[in-house]
């Protein structure tokens, strides 16, 4: 497999697959019914990575250029064992240069050490896989050109900036094809593209102690729109003035952006996953309110749909990890849970009907512009960036230092804000909030410390309840 084969990549025709499939079936026959089933995954990943710095005239210099090719195989073996019956499963990353049967046998033995409540793997698909656009065709067509064109776009945009110094940039353009196949007769392939762009920039003259570090994550070049992003980030850097530490308060109004909204709501919808009910972690079921107290009069409400088919979004997919066809559905209407997310295994455990709901968060827009949101309260802080927004997935509480913000009084910007620790509780915050009427998209590919996120919804949210800050 070379780096130039990507355009026509059909992983079901991978050269190792017939041998791997044969070896899996051979070991399955060897152990009879105790070897219940298998799944295999093939991954082909290519990445172009450029790390750049700028000189005083904002001329780019690449100091690290990388081409990465990853072609790998993984298997999962399911076993039925013990009396009373237990189900085991274990995964293994196959080394193609080593004996396949030995590796599968080992995975089988590992699986016998796991004793979970039995469930039946699906043998029939709930509906045909939909055709979902999960990849930018331009990136798929020619990864090198796509990456190099974006570098040119960045270069051009940077050289036209005035009054700022660009310190560093990173651009990663990634293309991944995955294929799966199960002993129960399911198979599927999908392509995923993603772009990661990072820019650190500061206002001239130097030296100063304020810097804007911003990231753009997207699935397509069009959505990344790097020229606009560079311009917006530069404008933000230019707007920086002297900062103050916020005053300690138990009831602050804040405005957060689409990225923060997406983070909060991703954690909130996590509570709708029926797996949490089985694991006895805090969860929400159909009919539950997402609020911990009554909604305050005048507040907007959360109306949220999960959609696995939105084109070129991070959580769009033609199939679930169980090989079923994912379903689009409203999950929260007027702050009330309308659907739990129930997949095959947990449905059997909880004696519920599976609904296969998953996907990108689609949140209804509000009525006001961002300016009107700011004008609607006497005082508020717009959080431009959190130092590190940590959200507890179990308690749904969160906190962070304010890396940079803007303080508004009666609709007027009075100062920049930096420092102070801000915290909240999502279930209280959503009792009194307002959403903007402008739409944004947020995409985050899973990896590092982040889970995957896909969000289409309001660009800003004004939160008027349950925000505490410790500062001066």
């Amino acid at each position, binding site marked *: 497999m070379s780096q130039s084969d990507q355009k026509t990549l059909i992983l079901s025709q991978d050269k190792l697959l017939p041998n791997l499939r044969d070896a899996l079936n051979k070991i399955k026959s060897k152990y009879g019914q105790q070897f219940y089933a298998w799944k295999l995954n093939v991954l082909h990943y290519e990445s172009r*990575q450029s*790390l750049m*710095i700028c000189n005083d005239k904002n001329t780019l*210099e690449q*100091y*690290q*250029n*990388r*081409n*990465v*090719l*990853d072609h*790998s195989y*993984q298997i999962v073996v399911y076993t039925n064992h013990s009396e009373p019956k237990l189900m085991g*499963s*274990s*995964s*293994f*990353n196959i080394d193609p*240069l080593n004996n396949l049967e030995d590796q599968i046998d*080992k995975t089988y033995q*590992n699986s016998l050490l*796991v004793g*979970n409540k039995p469930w039946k793997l699906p043998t029939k698909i709930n509906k045909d896989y939909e055709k979902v656009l999960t990849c930018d065709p331009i990136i798929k067509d020619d990864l090198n050109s796509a990456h190099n064109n974006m570098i040119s776009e960045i270069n051009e945009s940077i050289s036209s900036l005035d009054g700022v110094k660009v310190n*560093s940039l990173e651009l990663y353009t990634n293309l991944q094809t995955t294929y799966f196949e199960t002993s129960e007769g399911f198979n599927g392939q999908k392509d995923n593209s993603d772009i990661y762009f990072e820019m*650190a920039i*500061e206002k001239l003259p130097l*030296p100063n*102690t*304020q*810097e804007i570090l911003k990231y753009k994550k997207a699935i397509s070049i069009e959505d990344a729109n790097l020229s606009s992003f560079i311009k917006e980030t530069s404008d933000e850097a230019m707007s920086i003035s002297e900062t103050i530490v916020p005053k*300690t308060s138990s009831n602050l109004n804040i405005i957060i952006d689409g990225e923060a909204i997406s983070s909060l709501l991703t954690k909130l919808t996590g509570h709708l996953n029926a797996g949490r009910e089985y*694991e*006895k*972690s*805090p969860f929400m079921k159909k009919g539950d309110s997402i609020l911990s107290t009554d909604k305050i009069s005048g507040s907007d409400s959360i109306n949220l749909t999960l959609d696995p088919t939105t084109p070129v979004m991070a959580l769009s997919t033609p199939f679930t990890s169980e090989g079923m066809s994912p379903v689009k559905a409203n999950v929260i209407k007027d702050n009330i849970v309308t659907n739990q997310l129930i997949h095959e295994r947990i449905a059997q455990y909880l004696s519920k009907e599976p609904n296969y709901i998953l996907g990108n968060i689609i949140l209804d827009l509000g009525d006001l512009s961002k300016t009107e949101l700011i004008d609607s309260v006497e005082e508020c802080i717009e959080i431009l960036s959190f*130092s*590190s927004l*940590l959200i*507890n997935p*179990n*308690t*749904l*509480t*969160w*906190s962070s*230092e304010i890396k940079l913000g803007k303080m508004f009084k009666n609709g007027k910007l009075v100062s920049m804000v*930096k420092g*102070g*620790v*801000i*915290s*909240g509780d999502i279930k*209280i915050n959503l009792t009194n909030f307002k959403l903007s009427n402008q739409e944004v998209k947020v995409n985050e590919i899973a990896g*590092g*410390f*982040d889970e995957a996120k896909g969000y289409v919804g309001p660009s800003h949210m004004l939160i008027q309840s349950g925000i*505490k*800050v*410790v500062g001066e």
Partner: protein
Amino acid sequence: MSGKRIEFPKHLQKIRTLMPKLLNILEIGHEEEWYSFIWLEELKAINCVAAVNQSSSESMDRGLVLRVLIDGQNFERATNILSEESLITLTRDFRSELEMKFSKTTSKSYRPCSWKDEDRSLLGDDILDQIVGDTTSKTEVHFSPKCQHNPFDSKIEKLSEQCNSTRKEFLKSSKEIVEAHSEYKELADIKSMIRQNIVTHVFVDREKNMSQTLPITLAYTMGMTQTGQTARCISGGLGGLEIAKHSTEDKLEVTKRSLQLANAKKLIPGRYQVISGPDVTGVIAHEAFGHTQEGDTWMKGRSIAKGLHEAKTKVGNEQASIVNHPNMFSMEDFAYGSNGSYFFDHEGQLGRPQQILDKGILSTPMTDLTSSMRLNVPRTANGKRESWRRPLMTRQTNTYFTPGDKTVEELISMVKDGYLARWASGGMEDPKGGSLTAGTAYLEEIKEGKLTGEVYLGPSGGHVELSDPVFTLLDRIIAKSKSTNANDIPENKFGGCGKYHKEGVPAGCGGPYILWESINCG
């Protein structure tokens, strides 16, 4: 540590033998203008989880990187397709591509250090003992820590048995506590996990051919209440399964503490006197002048530290001293290092300790090869990458505050009204703005020099953030606890770093218990 060193894995010998050939294909005839190395890494991982939902997994990930440095630019090809034929083709193609791109170069190549020219003064016994005889560029030198249990003999059965038994024992203990205290409700679950990663690196350039095997073993157990409050314990570091053992104190943390947290009070936001334990102290060290002292951050003009170093500005009081210590193979009363320890970095630089902050005065930064060359500062062993799939950057290894002269009891007795912060919960820094935030899972109340037994969560019921401008913070160290370690190396906790938010690498951090005059807590 007693035990044996781990031999170089035989199954990697074939590819190791190929690596000098690849290096020749890549740079022969270009040594005056190019500097190249070949990097191989293998990660063998086994993992077992005992919980309501059990799981196990085993994986082997292996990849090779070809690196060429020309005119200050680094070019890399990375792949996990490792047959001899495909690697030779990849190397030839890569060379041709670079020859086309650089028909002329403007600068001489970097000259790597030979074994003969290495300064051996700070390498330490663990490295020196393994450099045997007259080493030349062709000598295959291998490093590993001593282990009682050879990690290559670890079986998933053993891991499964150990985490199931831990879970059972801890669940029993928590039930007994609930039965004895009517205010507590049964835990939702206790999850116990053991993971062992055996990392083997091979580095080949024109002067050295060396390898290291680093077994990183972790036992992690977490208790969760029905309301979602959690308490955890972590044991492990650089060593075999023998180091993945929880103590009685760990058991109490997971069982009793998580139950207590369900009824914990919420902190009133404000400034308080705080004692940080090694875990939280370490995060402060890592964030305070850890990230700010990373050479690539200096190189990009993104760090406040460069100017402060050049102006010799004092950024903390006499107690503010921080060490970067890659070749750390024992600490406090543990005969093993943390998961951030290694013998050489991912560019073949041998590990040596470096004081990055000395009594409030900043040194030159930690560096990788690129930042050291561009900044014209000494090279240190801090060039690391998340994996062969990711770029190399300047990264921290083990970062810790130096110890002081008090006992922990003496520190507590010095607090009239304050808190003890023992369990870290994330952290972040602003290297340009000089602020930091370090999270702690909860605070233990101290009144009139004694722990009261009360625990506090953050103002909104989550973890507590400790946040201040770095200079303010480092000027407010009142006292530090002493170390029992013969080399004065305090405990470093098992940890990781994401360089702001990505590129996760192992990074130990620690230090003594530190009493801070006041910190903003919210």
